[in-house]
Structures are given as structure tokens and as C-alpha cells.
């Protein structure tokens, strides 16, 4: 499987992740070596990140997500695409997101 993140690919949340909305924050806890670590490995997302996260349903390519976000946020397509790719790359690197096999 290619490791490069592409705008043409579909990504979804890894099964080895617990994600819950708590007190308005999206809490993400990766499960590493069989342990979900609230103390040392928890993430939260800002509003922009939450918007991107909510669209990672395993059905749309990143290009499709960019198109949807263009209607929700100010900014050029290039800027939004750059944000989405940067966001997904980071989560993909941390194995929080995985590429969906078609």
C-alpha cells in the first residue's frame, strides 16, 4: 500500500482509535500496543480539524472533502486542500487514519 497521502484517495479512522465528543471537544485516543492512554497520548481537534474529521467517513476522497469544505470556510481551494492534506498526513503518520481499500 502506498504511504503517500493523495487527494484522490479515501481515508477513514483506524479501528485502533477511540474517538468521542466530550464537553464540546473531540477526544482522540490511539490504541498503541494494546493500550489506550488517556494520560500521555490523547489528542483533541480544533474546530477546523473537527470539520475535516467529520467528513472522513470512508466514502469520499480527500478531493471530495475539499469541495465540501469550500462551501463552509473562507479560503481558496488551494489553501483548503493544503490544510486537508496537512491534517490527514499528520493523522496518517500517527496511524490514526488509514487508507481505505476500495
Amino acid at each position, binding site marked *: 500500500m502506498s504511504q503517500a497521502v493523495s487527494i484522490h484517495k479515501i481515508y477513514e479512522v483506524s*479501528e*485502533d482509535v*477511540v474517538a*468521542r465528543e*466530550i*464537553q464540546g*471537544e473531540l*477526544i482522540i*485516543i490511539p*490504541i498503541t500496543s*494494546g*493500550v*489506550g*492512554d*488517556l*494520560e*500521555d*497520548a*490523547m*489528542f*483533541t*481537534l*480544533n474546530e477546523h*480539524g473537527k470539520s475535516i474529521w467529520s467528513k472522513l467517513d470512508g466514502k469520499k476522497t480527500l478531493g471530495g472533502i475539499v469541495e465540501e469544505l469550500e462551501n463552509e470556510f473562507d479560503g481558496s481551494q488551494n489553501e483548503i486542500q493544503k490544510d486537508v492534506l496537512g*491534517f490527514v498526513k*499528520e*493523522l496518517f503518520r500517527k496511524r490514526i487514519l488509514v487508507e481505505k481499500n476500495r
Partner: protein
Amino acid sequence: MKKTDEEAGAKELGFSGKDLAELVSATVEKGASFRLKARGFSMSPFIRDGDILTISPPEASDIALGKVIACRHPLNAGLVVHRMIGVQNGRYCLKGDNVSAADGFVPRENVLGVVGKIERAGRSVSLGLGKERVLIAFLSRLDFLGLLSLARVVKHLWSKKSEVRDAGNR
């Protein structure tokens, strides 16, 4: 995205007991263990405020007398981590080691996991999790541990009084 251990850790977000129960439940359902910081003094001295606990998914044989169990409170759905001191009609009686009264009986489906590891100041602590847990459970039922806590408080107050008296005599 922000890393939360510095910007908004679990403490700053102020997770409620119900929030924690939900996170523990979601994690053990995936067959994974959950690591979190203990809050409170109900399990002192075996689990202290600030200790890091690892809660593992429960196997049927794991829920044995004296084991420290994480469960969802049957009334408020909050996370409770106390010692199992008895079983009745398939329901588990839980009690904090430093609490006089038992929590009551919780059904099996409320049990989220078993504490398998305690970390304190970067070191693993095993006292209270090994075979001695059966004796601790027995003493807890008699509230003997509560008497020990009271004895420690009395001893502390007595030593303070002695210090004040000695300082006054100088």
C-alpha cells in the same frame, strides 16, 4: 490539531466520571487496556490520588475476590474503581479501601475492567493487587482498614501536638 497533554490534558478538560466511564468502555470493547490517572482518596493507601492505573478488559475469571474493578456506577453511570469484596446472586459488591460503606452491588454488565497495573512516580506498585488482595478485601469488609486510617490520623495529630509543645518549651 493540538496535542493535549500540555494544552488541554484530561485534568484541564475536567472529565466527569460519566465521561471517563464512556472512554474506558469504548477502549475495552476493542480489547485494549485503558490508562488513566486516579483521582480521590477512596482507595488509599493502595491507590493514591495521582497514581496511573491501567484497566484491562475483564475475563470472567478476572473478577475475583479482592480484585480492583472499574465499573459504571449503576445510578449515575460514572466511573468507579473500587475493590470487589463479595458476590451475591451474580452481582459484585464493591467498596473503597478507605471508605466505611460499600458502594452496593453492581451487575456484571456494569463491570468495565480490572486494574492490572498501578504506577506511582514512574514506578510500578504491586501492593494491593497480588494475593494479599483477598486479606485486604476481608479487612475492608470489617472496616478494619478504616480504623487503620483513623489510627494514622490520630498518630499524626499527636506528633504535631508534641512538636508544638516541644517548640513552646525551648
